């Protein structure tokens, strides 16, 4: 009953599972039906990424991903309370989605070709544009990632982060030594105790790690380079196009609502708006829910529950949160960002 090298065996098992999965019969076209039958949406979330999905001492979930989950539940079930959150590690997450344990995965997963095309799942759209950066101690007097020659760099395994790190430095022709950890807290502990000269992860986390976890925040600096594109968003199982469309368009509705100034607070007044775009979105003139198999109030309920995309951002990762991240790439398209919802009509 002894179990050495936990991580290796787990990875081997998952590799085996991944081989078998494409042959599995996805429960086609039935996700919405199943959700309605059990009157509960099951969201796969992270085991704790602050600002995206995390629990408090009472076990209540919050975060950007959690709010998107609440919005989806409100749109399809009309009751945001009926949600089950399943915390999943980065190694379990895709298997859990594929096996039907969760309806939608909101787990900070980066959208990549391989994941989208070969894991039996579909990335719907992007809810957060992230990129990978570096945190270094100031005493090393490093101002660019290119100066990390022969450096040991702490990184978490099982993520795209590890691969990006190797790719970037190979391309730059710089030799580095990645020091790989399975868990975030061990990686951080190692970095802050001086095991590595740099720590790398998504930039959204770096500023926060520096201010909250560093023994002395002023001794550390975030380097300017972003070495990768990390588009994060909800993922669904393949074989259910209707459910795929619903998840995608709930996110678009949140983004569109921000563009047209519909907030949680002014939702009721906006229902009387004469703007045809707002009328369509809120169902006051046209029934935009019908093509999705939902009722006409779908988007209004989602907005009432979670607020528009901008509100969700501010509350969880923006100025209203401990992370205090700038909107950056996640601003609306007409404000220099990438958030662009196709027309809801």
């Amino acid at each position, binding site marked *: *009953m*002894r*179990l050495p090298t*936990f991580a290796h*065996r*787990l990875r*081997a*098992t*998952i590799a*085996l*599972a991944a081989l*078998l*999965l494409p042959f*599995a*019969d996805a*429960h086609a076209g039935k996700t919405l039906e199943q959700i309605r039958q059990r009157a509960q949406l099951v969201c796969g979330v*992270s*085991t*704790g*990424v*602050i600002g995206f*999905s*995390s*629990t*408090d*001492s*009472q*076990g*209540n979930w919050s975060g950007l991903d959690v709010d998107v989950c609440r919005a989806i539940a409100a749109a399809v079930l009309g009751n945001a309370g009926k949600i*089950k959150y*399943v*915390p*999943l*590690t980065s*190694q*379990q997450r895709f*298997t*859990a989605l*594929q*096996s*039907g*344990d969760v309806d939608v995965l909101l787990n900070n997963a980066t959208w990549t070709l391989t994941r989208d095309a070969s894991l039996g799942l579909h990335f719907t759209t992007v809810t957060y544009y992230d990129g990978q950066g570096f945190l270094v101690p100031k005493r090393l007097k490093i101002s660019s990632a290119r100066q990390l020659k022969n450096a040991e760099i702490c990184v978490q395994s099982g993520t795209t982060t590890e691969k990006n790190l190797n790719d970037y430095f190979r391309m730059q022709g710089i030799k580095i030594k990645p020091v790989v950890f399975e*868990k*975030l*807290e061990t990686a951080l502990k190692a970095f802050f105790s001086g095991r590595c000269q740099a720590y790398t992860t998504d930039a959204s986390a770096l500023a*926060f790690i520096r201010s*909250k*976890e560093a*023994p002395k925040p002023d001794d550390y600096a975030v380097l300017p380079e972003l070495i990768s594109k990390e588009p994060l968003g909800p993922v669904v199982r393949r074989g259910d196009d209707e459910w795929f469309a619903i998840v995608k368009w709930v996110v678009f509705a949140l983004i569109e609502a921000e563009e047209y100034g519909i907030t949680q607070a002014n939702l009721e007044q906006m229902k009387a708006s004469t703007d045809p775009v707002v009328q369509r979105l809120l169902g006051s003139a046209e029934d935009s829910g019908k093509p999705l198999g939902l009722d006409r109030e779908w988007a209004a309920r989602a907005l009432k529950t979670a607020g528009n995309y901008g509100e969700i951002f501010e509350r969880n990762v923006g100025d209203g949160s*401990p992370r205090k991240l700038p909107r950056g790439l996640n601003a609306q398209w007409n404000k220099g960002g990438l958030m662009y919802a196709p027309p809801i009509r």
Partner: protein
Amino acid sequence: MTQTAATREWLRRNLFSDAWSGLTTLLLLGGVLYWLPGLIEWTLVKAVFRPDAAACGAIEHAGACWGVVAEKYRFILFGRYPHAEQWRPLLATVLLLLVIVVSGLRLLNRSGLFAAWVLALPAFFLLMGGGLLGLTPVGSDQWGGFPLTLLLATLGMLLAFPLAVLVALGRYQSDLPLLRILCTFYVELVRGVPLISVLFLASFLFPIILPPGISIDVLLRVQAGIVLFAAAYLSETLRGGLQAVSAGQHDAASALGLSRWQAMRWIILPQAIRAVIPSIVNSAVSVFKDTSLVTVVSLYELTGALSLALAGDAEWRSYYLEGYLFIGLIYWIGCYSMSRFGADLERRLAAGVR
């Protein structure tokens, strides 16, 4: 005077019998004196016991922040179980622990014990699962923390033992080759894969293989995995015990006119089990700690609940050490009790050979 002399004699004989022994004693004593003050300072003197993140931050890890346990103990002990309903897992755990302790201390006779278990296990499931007597239903995937650890370990051992006896007998019998091959196949198959794969297969791949619409409770699947796994190991332990019983015992039993099964039940098996009690306790301790692996299938038992409780909370995330020490203490109490029970059992059963 004689007291001091006796003490001195004891010291001399046990701690300073020769130069090496004396040196070792001094080194160890020096080590204790060197480390102990720092340890006491960290665990007690400079420690923060209040659930006050600011106070914990102020001491900068110079002392333990037990406040993390004060703040998160409910999450650590009961995992994702709904907060308002946590009296139920508490009661269920106390009930099950009580029955276990009563069994271990032999406070009841055989029929009393049987009745206690028959009542306690359904009561445990009723309290945890609800759905009856006005209790809100709570799905088994929401069960977590210590009750889950306790349940998996208790049922794991309770069900694995009879299965292991059957398998051990199956391999031990030489006149039923098919049965022997089957038992050998089972043991080698299960023992040849890590528990973590068994759990992963049981939890994630099983539902894909099953026809859609049919689903088996995840806890049941995982529990079955643990039982099958523990039984494979335990059966080999027991087979070793069976082989240790001398052939003369078989002959003596048949000379007394006992049938083969009677001989097995009353003569061979009791001696075989007695011979391997330390190994059985070993298995029990292993099963207890191996339950921590169910985290890989999203059941958050004690260790899983701890990481879940701390990973998502920036204020408390840096106090993992204190959290792990807390659950380490729980595991240690459990394992130490088991080994005391094993020692007691050995003493009692050895009555015949003294």
